[in-house]
């Protein structure tokens, strides 16, 4: 059973599982119908249009052996109820799903999507988080707080059902040439607002690698908590330059209020989560993931390159143009100098 199949990640995971011969039946649970583009993927998936409250009966009746919980929203969507609906889905939804899963006797596996936002953001944080790092302060962002709640429920579930292999995957922000998240929209803008005097260290994970990890955690047995991210780091300024965009540094306070204003109008989705990320940066150690899954996600730089390939439009400064400018300047200097020496030779005799 896969929750959140009306969304990008859930639909793809469900489709991949349905195509795997090791999996007999895939049931998608979501209160919303998938968009027409995603519905094409879900032909082999039995869809149940219900929210997590119905999960109890569904899991029990169908005798599900594995539950993949992906119905976790990272940003409030003004069209479907905003922050209240987001919390309802993230926190209450997880609570109800786990309560149902606890009573299901045939359940053997639980996979939950989490995020590296679980590490919070503080100035005293170590530069690189391992799975054992505890957050030092309760984060400001709503998504990060939801993630902490969700992980708390999973901890409780693990205590009560030690026989179920529970996998918590802490994903770095997703990126690919086609994925649509608040961060990809952010990097697709021609003029990118950043926090003045801060240059966060960022990590991304490619969507295809995330799908591979999710797929493996369902068909194989990998209990535990794992960081999922591409190795390596991009500084925010570096990422902006690689994408050929222009950054607009704003003081943190101005950026916060501008983002809040934009959210109220209904444009832009930069929340406190993103601002915390841009101030503090977030880098995780993926050693445990690589060891346990035997799979290395492509590096952050490679994942970001793929994103750049998909978003060529709107670039102000591309690497080719810079190289061309460099050659033009060098040629210009050489020509001027050659002319100057020639003049000297003329004058000399």
């Amino acid at each position, binding site marked *: 059973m896969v929750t959140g199949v009306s969304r990008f990640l859930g639909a793809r995971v469900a489709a991949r599982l349905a195509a795997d011969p090791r999996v007999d039946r895939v049931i998608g649970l979501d209160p919303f119908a998938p968009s027409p583009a995603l519905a094409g993927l879900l032909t082999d998936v039995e869809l149940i249009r219900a929210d997590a409250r119905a999960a109890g009966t569904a899991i029990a009746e169908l005798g599900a052996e594995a539950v993949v919980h992906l119905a976790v929203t990272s940003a409030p969507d003004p069209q479907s109820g905003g922050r209240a609906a987001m919390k309802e889905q993230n926190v209450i939804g997880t609570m109800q799903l786990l309560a149902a899963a606890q009573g299901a006797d045939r359940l053997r596996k639980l996979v939950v999507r989490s995020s590296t936002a679980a590490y919070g953001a503080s*100035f*005293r*944080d*170590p*530069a*690189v988080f*391992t799975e054992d*790092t505890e957050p030092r302060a309760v984060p400001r962002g709503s998504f990060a707080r939801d993630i902490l709640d969700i992980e708390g429920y999973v901890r409780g579930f693990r205590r009560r059902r030690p026989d179920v292999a529970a996998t918590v995957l802490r994903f770095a922000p997703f990126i690919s040439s086609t994925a649509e998240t608040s961060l990809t929209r952010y990097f697709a803008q021609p003029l990118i607002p950043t*926090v*003045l*005097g*801060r*240059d966060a*260290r960022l990590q991304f994970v490619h969507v295809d690698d995330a799908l591979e990890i999710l797929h493996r955690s369902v068909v194989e047995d990998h209990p535990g908590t794992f960081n999922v991210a591409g190795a*390596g*780091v*991009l*500084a925010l*300024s*570096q*990422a*902006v*330059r*690689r994408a050929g965009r222009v950054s607009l540094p704003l003081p*943190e306070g101005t950026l916060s209020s501008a983002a809040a204003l934009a959210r109220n109008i209904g444009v832009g989705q930069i929340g406190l989560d993103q601002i915390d990320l841009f101030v503090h*940066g977030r*880098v995780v150690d993926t050693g445990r993931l690589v060891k346990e899954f035997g799979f290395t996600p492509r590096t952050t730089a490679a994942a970001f390159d793929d994103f750049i390939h998909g978003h060529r439009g709107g670039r102000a*400064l591309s*690497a080719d143009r*810079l*190289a061309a*400018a*460099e050659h033009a*300047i*060098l040629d210009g*200097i*050489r020509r001027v*100098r050659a002319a100057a*020496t020639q003049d000297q030779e003329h004058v000399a005799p």
Partner: protein
Amino acid sequence: MTQDEYHAALPGHADFALPATPPPKPLNGNRPGRRRPALPATEVHPPAQLEAAPPEAAAPAPARPEPGDPEPARGADPIDVWDRRVAGGLAFLRRRLAGAYEVDDFGFDPELNDAVFQPMLKVLYRDWFRTEVFGIENVPDTGGGLVVGNHSGTLALDALMLTVALRDQHPKDRHLRLLGADLVFRLPVLSELARKAGATVACNPDAERLMSHGELVGVFPEGFKGIGKRFSERYKLQRFGRGGFVSAALRTGTPIVPVAIVGAEEIYPILADLKPLARLLGMPYFPVTPTFPWLGPLGLVPLPSKWLIEFCPPIPTAHLTEYADDPMVVFNLADQVRETIQATLHSLLEKRPDPFGL
């Protein structure tokens, strides 16, 4: 672990004696910087030089044609040299603008560091402070190391000069990864400069990660107590805190290299500390020096004192890994490091009778 057991476990440390001080000879008047090519020829310390000699001898050989190169080229074709320099500068600019450079997990940017930060600091290091370095052969050529120094000078210029000393004088041109107070990482701009220069927050996970990756880590256990002390307390080491740096070194089995820095105390002599004002501004101290705040921004110009940096022999810790949580071992080792630095400070001060001499 009792004191006796500690001594039994440490054959090398039980008969620990402070390094024998060579007869002091005043060094004022020697221009540093040009010493390095002359060193292999003079062979002042034959035993210590043996290990250092091959890389030392190998390094100038490929390096020599480069400084020598422009001379004949300038005679032949001056355009070529300048062409190459302009092309190099433009290529650097293009790489920076296109984001085509690497940053490590801690935000360290080696290219920016070597092209911008180090040359700027080197002017201060060589021409303003006339720094001289001793015992550079005590810093390991490869693998991790924990460089522990005395902290002084109101602004942490001593830490920056130490990075320049290691980058410039060490046969392997090692980068020093500093551990900074979290106040540094709270401030915008400064935090990012520190990260790009290779520093990170002083906490055990970061220190252990750096050391286990074979990096050279620099730490100043005195912290703000050291840099914020009065001028009358100069060259008196302050308390070393909880010795967290020792347990980090023990856990990773990294050798500890104590280093004594003389000269930083005189750059901004603190005559008084306005505590209420410091509390109001959220700073650890508010210094009053002969020039600050009287001369405004001019007061930020450091006084040109003469600097001496001496690296002491490394203290191995690989055989003590299981005692990382034993407070007895940790405190003993921290004390040993502290005493070594203090004794070396005294011997260096004897070599430098005049703080502002050449």
